[in-house]
Structure formats: structure tokens, C-alpha cells
């Protein structure tokens, strides 16, 4: 009964909404034009990066907070610390990981750099770094985390704190995150570099924390 109702409701919703979307007139505000117009003073050449770190940088600040928060929550929930010994991963896999990880680091930095003028940026770079860590972990080259020490915590929160510090520092001479146009470039790069490391660590942490409790017992 419930199933039927839900399915019917979903179907009606889809039909109604798509119908309404087809009727829609063009939007009255074209933000992409505003973005292009202000791009020169944003400090970067790629509009999406400009939006992410300048025009709507505040969103990104909070978004990083969400990610850091998720990691803290996972730490706070507490996971069994029973780590059992896993059989050694095959040397083939390990070799693959050993080769791929440095490559991924180059790719990550490339993505970070490229973000200034075309698609790419801190998040993608961080994700690649995290993927490298996941790969290493899967190949048994990187142990899972128990509870992060000070240095690791510094790495996890560092990017966010740099972002916060820049934002707050700018607040003293204007609005929050109001970059002076000529300095916006390096500030954004600074923030992004910090974020890349922290995002990489956080995303990796999500996996390394979660997967530590049960091993491959085959």
C-alpha cells in the first residue's frame, strides 16, 4: 500500500515538475554575464573557480567546514579499534600503487594549478590525493588511522584555518573575503593550496578511518 502510494506520488511529481519546467520562460537575471563582467577583478580566469573562491567563497568556506565536521563526527562516533592482520597484498598491486601514487600527486598539483584558468581546482586535486591514499591503503602500504595525532590534525584542519584566517583578515579592511583585486590571485592560490592538502587528508581520512576496523579475512 505504502509502496503504491509512494510510486504514484513520485510519478505525479515527475510529470508535474517536468511539465512546469517545459513551460518556463527564460530567467530574468543572467548571473553568468555578471560573472564574466567581474572575472577580471576576481583574481582567476576560470569563472567556476572565481565563483567558488571569490564571488561565493563563503559557501566554500562553510562547505569545507561541513567536510571537516563529517570527519570529526566519524572520529566522535568511535569505531572498534580491533585491527586484524590482513594478508599481504599481492606485489603486483603494491607495485601499481607505488607507481601510481607519485603520478597522482603530479596530477593533483596540476589540477590545482589548472583551476585558475580552466576546470580544476582544490577539490578535484584533493580528491585525487585522497584517491592516492585510498589506493595505497588498499595495497596495504598505508595503515588505517586510529586516532589522528597533532600533526595529522593540523593537516586536516590547516586548509580550513588558512581559509578562515584569510577571510577574517580581509574582514578587517572591508567585507568578509573581500580580496583586493590585485592580490586576489595569490590569496586564492594560497587558500586553494591549503585546501588541497586538507581536503586530500580529510577525504582520505573518511576512508582510512572507516575501513580500519575490519580486515580482509579471507
Amino acid at each position: 500500500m505504502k509502496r503504491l502510494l509512494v510510486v504514484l506520488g513520485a510519478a505525479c511529481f515527475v510529470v508535474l515538475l517536468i511539465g512546469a519546467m517545459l513551460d518556463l520562460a527564460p530567467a530574468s537575471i543572467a548571473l553568468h554575464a555578471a560573472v564574466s563582467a567581474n572575472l577580471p577583478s576576481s583574481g582567476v580566469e576560470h569563472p567556476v573557480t572565481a565563483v567558488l573562491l571569490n564571488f561565493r567563497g563563503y559557501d566554500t568556506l562553510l562547505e569545507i567546514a561541513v567536510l571537516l565536521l563529517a570527519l570529526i563526527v566519524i572520529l566522535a562516533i568511535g569505531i572498534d579499534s580491533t585491527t586484524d592482520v590482513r594478508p599481504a597484498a599481492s606485489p603486483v598491486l603494491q607495485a601499481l600503487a607505488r607507481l601510481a601514487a607519485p603520478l597522482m600527486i603530479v596530477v593533483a598539483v596540476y589540477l590545482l594549478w589548472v583551476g585558475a584558468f580552466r576546470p580544476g581546482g582544490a577539490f578535484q586535486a584533493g580528491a585525487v590525493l585522497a584517491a592516492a591514499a585510498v589506493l595505497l591503503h588498499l595495497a596495504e602500504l598505508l595503515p588505517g588511522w586510529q586516532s589522528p595525532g597533532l600533526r595529522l590534525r593540523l593537516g586536516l584542519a590547516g586548509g580550513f584555518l588558512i581559509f578562515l584566517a584569510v577571510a577574517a583578515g580581509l574582514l578587517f579592511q572591508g567585507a568578509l573575503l573581500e580580496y583586493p583585486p590585485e592580490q586576489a590571485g595569490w590569496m586564492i592560490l594560497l587558500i586553494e593550496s591549503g585546501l588541497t592538502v586538507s581536503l586530500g587528508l580529510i577525504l582520505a581520512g573518511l576512508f582510512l578511518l572507516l575501513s580500519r576496523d575490519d580486515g580482509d579475512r579471507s
Partner: protein
Amino acid sequence: MIEILSTALLIVGAFFYFAGTLGLLRFPDVYSRLHALAKADNLGLGCVLIGLALQAENVAVALKLLLIWPLALAASAGVSYAIARRADSLGIAPWRKEKQ
């Protein structure tokens, strides 16, 4: 000339892809399907990449395209080995013709 060569390579690539898919559909067990995917699809990818690299505006761009291939090869080598090994350790026996 380059365009024709490029197009030809693309078509050949597509053919290998097709063959790979066909292998996936027709081959009887995991191991043999792995053969199909690891070899045919990657060859297809290689052809496509070379075909496109021919059209690239400069060397770096072409090399970038070509860079993808070894990456994909390494990845598929690793994965197919991992899968085959796992299948083997789980005791999945290879399909044999005699059985039929």
C-alpha cells in the same frame, strides 16, 4: 591525409571496442571475459587516442592524449590481475570446453 588516417584509426578503435563487448557477451567465464576487456578494449582505446592525437594542435596536447593510454593499460592490468587472483582464491574454476 592525417584526417583520413585519424578517422580510420577511430573506426578501428571502435571496432576493437565492439569486439571487446562482444567478448564480454559471448565468453563463458570471468577469466575469459577479462581477456576480452583487458586486451580488446584497451586496444580500442589506444587506437582512438592515437587517432585523436594525430589531430592535436601541438605536441604537448598530443602527448597528453597518449599519456592516457599507459595509464589505462596499467590500470586494467592491475585490476584484471586483482580480479583474476581473487576469483581464483575464491575457488572459481575456469570454464573448460570438455565440460560441455
